């Protein structure tokens, strides 16, 4: 049976040993929650600390240190345009990469789910895509840089969209393939008999049925792109700088300015966090659909 939380519970009256285990489980959960939230809490209070307090022990605002908004003020007013530029770039690059990865990935995923290939087997094609995920970025960063230079694409959002679409396409392909597997072929048969083309079937029938996975894969693609650092760092310098690189910019000749790191970290995590909270049910479904079905 399934309770309100959507978590399945075993039936029957809990035995005493069960209750003990429940207590232990709860304790573990509480500890884990503190562990998960602590860095965010720390970032929040550090962003409110004066530089002098950053190096002194202070956990609780007002009790142990005087909170100040000056860091936020300085960041949002003095550096506001740079920060909002960074957020904007990250958003556009993330969106672009997500769209490209999802478009190409959904097509490929559908093909892998519905057709049997000759010459190159389905399994090989799937692994071809998956191996993209295995590839260390270190192996392609130098040529990317070199060619971006040659083609005058350095410091453009286009090149970053292209790179990130490549990195996140495997998720799209494999997740969508599994999603399409989950749709009974009979649903498409009817349309096929009516003379619809494969593409039409995909768009009108199968795709809507895989909406949760579509959203999950899109979110994953967007989120991984949002946090990508190495390529953003190397391929951009002023116009196309994403937020992840802006955070790195808080290090200067005088060392890291932690209060600014904290404000930028929180600004950088806010958009994904909001999106995640809205669609968290889909993410879990999508993530697990992909992994579990295999």
């Amino acid at each position, binding site marked *: 049976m399934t309770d309100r939380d959507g978590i399945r519970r075993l039936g029957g009256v809990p035995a005493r040993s069960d209750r003990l285990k429940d207590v232990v489980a709860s304790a573990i959960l509480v500890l884990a929650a503190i562990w998960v939230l602590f860095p*965010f809490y720390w970032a929040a209070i550090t962003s409110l600390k004066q530089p002098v307090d950053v190096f002194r022990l202070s956990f609780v605002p007002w009790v142990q240190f005087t909170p100040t908004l000056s860091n936020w003020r300085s960041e949002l007013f003095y550096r506001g345009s740079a920060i909002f530029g960074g957020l904007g770039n990250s958003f556009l690059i993330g969106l672009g990469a997500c769209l490209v990865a999802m478009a190409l990935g959904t097509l490929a995923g559908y093909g892998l789910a519905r057709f049997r290939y000759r010459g190159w087997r389905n399994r090989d*094609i799937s692994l071809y*895509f998956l191996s993209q995920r295995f590839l260390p970025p*270190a192996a392609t960063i130098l040529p990317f840089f070199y060619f971006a230079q040659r083609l005058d694409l350095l410091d453009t959002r286009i090149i970053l969209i292209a790179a990130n679409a490549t990195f996140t396409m495997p998720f799209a392909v494999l997740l969508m393939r599994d999603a399409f597997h989950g749709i009974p072929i009979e649903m498409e048969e009817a349309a096929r008999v009516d003379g619809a083309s494969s593409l039409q079937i995909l768009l009108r029938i199968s795709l809507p049925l895989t909406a949760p996975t579509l959203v999950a894969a899109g979110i994953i693609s967007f*989120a991984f792109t949002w946090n990508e650092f190495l390529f953003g760092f190397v391929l951009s310098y002023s116009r196309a700088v994403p937020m992840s690189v802006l*955070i790195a910019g808080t290090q200067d000749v005088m060392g890291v300015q932690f209060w600014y790191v904290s404000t930028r970290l929180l600004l950088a*995590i806010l958009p994904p966090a909001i999106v995640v909270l809205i669609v968290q049910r889909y993410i*879990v479904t999508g993530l697990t659909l992909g*992994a579990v079905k295999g």
Partner: protein
Amino acid sequence: MSTTLAARGPEGDGAGGTSWRRSYHLRAWSFTAPGVVWVFAFTIFPLAHTLYLSLQSTGLGGNRFVGLRNFVRLWSDYRFWSALRLTLTFVAVSVVVTLVVGTVLALAVNRGVRGTRVFRTLSILPMFAAPIALGYLGLTIFYQQGGPINNVLAAVGLRPVPWLSDGRWALVSILAVDVWQWTPFVFLVVLAALQNVPAELLEAARIETSSSWPVLTRITFPLIRGPLGTVIILRIVEAFKVFDIPFTLTNGGPGVATRSLTYDVYTTGLRNQNFGYAASIAVVMLVLVMVVAIVFYRSYGSTYE
């Protein structure tokens, strides 16, 4: 049900001969070709170029072909071995720890106590925090004189730990950040897998024995073997690429204690402008990953049919 069947093959519905077969394959490839071509252009092609670069030496006038000289130098370069050793250690420890902690968490949550839904939501957040920022944040959290962790330690009477100024503890620090970030991933996947275990099976086992350990090991774990394998492999390849955290938390130090392979490629290639040598390190990384990939394909490849 034919849901898991890959497809009706070209022999499929029996209607029409070679021309139908040809159009079948045409249709099939029209779906996957765009993705395949894209990946080729942005992956295989740059890889070939990296290979080409690894055979060059970068001097004042540009690149010069030197054959395998870079690799010979790598072999006797203690910095390369140090980075390799560090990266492999990092991968091993990170994967094991995230696996254990994530699984324990999943088992705990699977009991269905109150607050699990909230926890599940919260646990997604670490995956979406930029590792770059976490590294910088770590500088304050691991701060030796007066950072929160050392203060808690002092409060319980332990000596402060040199988190960032001792080689071994620096490794622990970067592991801590990585584990914090990726345990949720393991947790979510294992939890979903656990929830797919049929309740009747567990109840039946419960009747046989009241202790949970055998139930866990003989029934649950074998049933979630598939997703567990996927998670392990994904963790391994992600951990292998580690860069952001040492870059911000320790600069690869002290000395070279936390210098990962990717960090070496970045410094050698883009900071020191020594492209040829950097490419050779990248090629070695590639070979290592391919070995892992081949092992993976042999064990789990069939699941991708």
